[in-house]
């Protein structure tokens, strides 16, 4: 099964332990990880994606992809708002997904905002990943041990979402375990 997953944790340090555990599962051959990223949601509801210091163009691409993916994991309506919010990025360090979403109608936006918020609540962090897994138990078990909650959708299921089809590309997830210096310890 080729899946996209979001594993939600109470804080950032746990999210990075989750990220490390995912790549360990890859190293042991239990799953194959194709890409990962870590997202935080501030107390004020803004999403921040941990990226390398990079150009605004690349940061926007990351933000649009992650925004769409988070929204798609929340449900069909979420994909529209997620992509639109991702397009509102401007930060050079860390891609913020908190911009205005002019392309989405208000009703859809409110519904999608609520759905996305159910996955990553204020103050929480999530590991977003694209994985191939023969069965879901290794990820579910390990993430539960670390205090994470796993949300999962198949890649084929996401492709069926009209809003999401333009965003099922791998470019916005790191193909290796990327940990920003701020979290990589001494």
């Amino acid at each position, binding site marked *: 099964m080729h899946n996209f997953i979001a594993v939600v944790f109470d804080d950032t340090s746990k999210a990075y332990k989750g990220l490390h555990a995912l790549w360990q599962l890859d190293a042991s*051959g239990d799953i194959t*990880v*194709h890409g990962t990223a870590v997202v935080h949601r501030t107390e004020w509801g803004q999403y921040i994606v941990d990226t*390398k*210091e990079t*150009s605004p163009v*690349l940061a926007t691409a990351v933000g649009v992809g992650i925004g769409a993916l988070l929204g798609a994991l929340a449900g069909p309506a979420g994909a529209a708002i997620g992509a639109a919010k991702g397009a509102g990025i401007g930060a050079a360090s860390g891609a913020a997904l908190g911009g205005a979403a002019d392309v989405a109608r208000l009703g859809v936006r409110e519904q999608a905002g609520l759905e996305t918020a159910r996955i990553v609540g204020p103050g929480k962090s999530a590991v977003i990943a694209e994985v*191939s897994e023969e*069965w879901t138990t290794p990820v579910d078990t390990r993430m539960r041990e670390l205090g994470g909650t796993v949300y999962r959708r198949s890649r084929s299921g996401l492709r069926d979402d009209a809003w999401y089809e333009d965003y099922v590309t*791998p470019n916005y997830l790191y193909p290796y375990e990327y940990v920003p210096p701020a979290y990589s310890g001494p």
Partner: protein
Amino acid sequence: MTQNQTKTQEALIQARAAAQELHGALSDAASSVRGAMSADLEAVQQKTRALMETLKSSASVQDEKARKHLKEALANLEAAQKHAMKGAKSVGQVLQDSVRKTLAEARISAQHISEALAEERSASAPKAKD
């Protein structure tokens, strides 16, 4: 898992590590304060060539889907090399555009190699347990 399958997977893991290293080097260059330099792209060309040779010698890959992914990865690496070559002879915006295109091709090639590994692992795994 047979000895052949183990060797094939080890080769794919090494190829994926090389693709990850290539992507890491490129994204570091793209994200550095000074911006990417021609020298960065010359180093990238060498890494790309080495990775392409590794992939071409992965003849032991039997799974049809995995072979298809490796073929795609090679095509992306060839495109990456062309962009890197153009960038190495350029400056300013043309150089930065080349870096961005090279990075995108390198990322997709890493994805294909990773998916080839997943296909090989799947082919040698016991049937699904859930």
